[in-house]
């Protein structure tokens, strides 16, 4: 399984600001996925990030709000822009394993005041 590191682990942010979350993987992977987990809820896919192409966003998520970069096969960033309290969530990075499963980072817990 891949080792996935996310930074920051947690942060408290002021409304109207933006925060960039980093995801580093210890091996090259084709697809990376970003998920959001709102308090007490399940995980919802934000977007799929492929190296060399624009991210593919799920319904309800837009690039202006959640810009994603994927500069190489081991790294990706997710920015949460112009944050509001409703953006308070855990954001998780995940990558595909060799047999169809996804492996997850430990998540980044954001609190927006």
């Amino acid at each position, binding site marked *: *399984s891949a080792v996935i590191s996310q930074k920051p682990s947690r942060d408290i942010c002021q409304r109207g600001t933006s925060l960039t979350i980093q995801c580093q993987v210890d091996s090259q992977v084709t*697809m990376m*996925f970003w*998920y959001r*987990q709102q308090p007490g*809820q*399940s*995980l*919802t*896919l934000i977007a*799929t990030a492929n190296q060399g192409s624009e991210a593919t966003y799920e319904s309800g998520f837009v690039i202006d709000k959640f810009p994603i970069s994927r500069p190489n096969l081991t790294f990706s960033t997710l920015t949460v822009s112009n944050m509001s309290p409703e953006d308070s969530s*855990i954001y*998780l990075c*995940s990558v*595909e394993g060799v*047999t*169809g*499963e*996804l*492996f*997850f980072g*430990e*998540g980044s*817990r954001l609190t927006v005041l």
Partner: protein
Amino acid sequence: AQTVTQSQPEMSVQEAETVTLSCTYDTSESDYYLFWYKQPPSRQMILVIRQEAYKQQNATENRFSVNFQKAAKSFSLKISDSQLGDAAMYFCAYRSARGADGLTFGKGTHLIIQP
């Protein structure tokens, strides 16, 4: 679009007993994967078990096993000899075998282990 339904928001079991968590899903695809993930309070998502839809044999991982009923679109998780460390949120998840999609998760079941 695929959907995953977990109808048990919370389950409780005595330590050393057996518990079954339910999951149903809806899809028009014939080739896909199903998973159970565990999320303890530390929030790390941990893969518990996986099942490929084309395999009739139910997957087993030590104390964890599934009952996969493809026609009924049912995928339950059985935990035998429950241990205190099994306490967590359990999420059932679906993934198309096409490989380009992420996981679709159910709402989760909170498993409590009574000592």
